[in-house]
């Protein structure tokens, strides 16, 4: 297995506040890797930095062996890293269809884009029903489906999902996690951020536990799910 993404000793801050102190993670080709941890642990900051929305204070980010820290957000997308951000961030005044088109903004291969569109609409049939509805008028669950679909429309090599289950009804949470497994079966590597640690550890191959901007533990997801410290802190056991 080769490393698709490597983050080495990442440090990121907002002004004087340091949100990520020292984080090193590796995501291998074809894996589902999850970052779990409580609010403010630095999970979203890590993802935003990988996506080029934030600039690291120090550390390195390598994608397919090349440095990508310091690249602008739109350049990172071009390399094949797509993100479904925290809070969904869909374009509320545009239709579902327009949102999906924007996901494929950088692609010029029209046939492949049309095929991907069919593929994501098969993944989320609900979106097909709402294809010409304004995205802002949909329910939270539908918006989340759209955010994931939009990221998939960029034909990512690495798909990053920031809290895809946040604020959703339990039945939808199950559905989202099932879909995550399906997406991986299509050959897409996934980096998943979750507060719902139990569900995340269930679908992931490996996991990192973040606490106050550092990595507290890491290992196989199935091992971490059984670890007493993790169960106590994050699984409510």
């Amino acid at each position, binding site marked *: 297995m080769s490393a698709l993404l490597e983050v080495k000793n990442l440090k990121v801050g907002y002004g004087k506040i340091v949100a990520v102190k020292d984080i090193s993670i590796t995501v291998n080709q074809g894996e589902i890797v999850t970052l779990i941890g409580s609010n403010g642990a630095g999970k979203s900051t890590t993802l935003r930095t990988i*996506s*080029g*929305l934030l600039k690291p204070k120090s550390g390195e980010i390598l994608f397919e062996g090349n440095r990508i820290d310091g690249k*602008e*957000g*739109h350049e990172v*997308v*071009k390399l094949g890293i*797509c*993100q479904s*951000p925290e809070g969904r*961030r*869909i*374009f*509320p*005044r*545009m239709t579902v269809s*327009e949102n999906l*088109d*924007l*996901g494929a*903004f*950088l692609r010029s291969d029209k046939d492949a884009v049309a095929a991907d569109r069919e593929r994501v609409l098969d993944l989320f049939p609900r979106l097909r029903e709402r294809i010409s509805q304004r995205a802002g008028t949909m329910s939270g669950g539908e918006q989340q489906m759209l955010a994931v679909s*939009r*990221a998939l429309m*960029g034909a990512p090599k690495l798909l990053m999902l920031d809290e895809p289950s946040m604020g959703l009804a339990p039945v939808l949470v199950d559905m989202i996690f099932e879909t995550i497994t399906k997406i991986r079966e299509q050959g897409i590597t996934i980096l998943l951020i979750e507060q719902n640690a139990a569900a995340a550890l269930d679908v992931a191959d490996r996991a990192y536990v973040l606490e106050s901007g550092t990595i507290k533990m890491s290992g196989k997801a199935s091992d971490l799910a059984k670890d007493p410290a993790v169960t106590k802190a994050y699984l409510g056991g």
Partner: protein
Amino acid sequence: MGKLKATVAAKKFTGTRGQVRRKRIETSGALIIAALMVLWLGVNLIKAPTQFAQVTVLGLRNGLLYALIALGYTLVYGIIELINFAHGDLFMLGALFSSYFITIWFHQENSNLAGWLTFVAALFAAMLFCGTINVLIERLAYRKLRRAPKLAPLITAVGMSFLLQFVGIKWNGSTPRQWPTVIPHGEYVWFGVIISHVTIILILVAAPLLGSLTFVVNKTKQGKAMRATAQDQDAARLMGIDVNKTISFTFALGGALAGAAGLLYQQSIGTTNYNLGFQLGLIAFTSAVLGGIGSLNGAVLGALLIGIVQGLNDGLPIALGQKWSQSVVFTILILILVLKPAGLLGKVTTEKV
């Protein structure tokens, strides 16, 4: 259970009471104004129908000019939520540039073929000139302040407005300057209403420009990037949109329209002055607010309405007359801000956090 429902209902009602009251003020205010307008227009229409049509045509013509400028305000506001106070002054520079281009650099003073060709060349040159300046203004003055508190770029825009006015004084001199015009100055008479060649040329230039803008914003990839950036910059970045480039493109579009307006103004009025931007800029800004700032259709609608109201006020037998022209425009601004802050076609926006 029943009691609980009742309290919930009561709560709901108090929650919306403010809105209901606001709605009532809006509707009754709008109704009173509409009634007074209809009365005023009706009396004038009966008294002098031809004159009425005449001033409406003139008003529409001015309205088109305002629309070209108003779009620059609304485009920039739509994408970075900045009132670009320097925009009117950019229009003034466009008018000065056109004067120099046609009269001083290409020596055209008459309405003949050479003159018309120079006019067409001046149109493209002025659009390019103002578009470039607007891009530079954003690059040098506003970009660094994009994440600063909103007051900072606003004050910078006011400063930029002064800077451009001083360029105008240096270039034009501090007094109004008269220029020869090269567009034909004949007229058609249609049912007693004079439609001048100037009016026709203005429509022939402005209408395709407005149409192209709508096309660019709604149908092209660049337009899609603009709309996405306007709604959520970070999300746009995550789609692979180059946000800086998109904002530059927006400033280029707004600037180009201001350049076209500058040429049209200079050629239809024949006078330039360094403070043109202040006068017309404020009127165009009012138009953009009337239509709903951020809305392209709104800017055009607002500009046409302001143009017509101004035309009617200046030219009808029973009206306040030209010396009240500006006061009427700004009274409209105040009334919109009180009665319908989102404008005629604007969306109610919540403050972004």
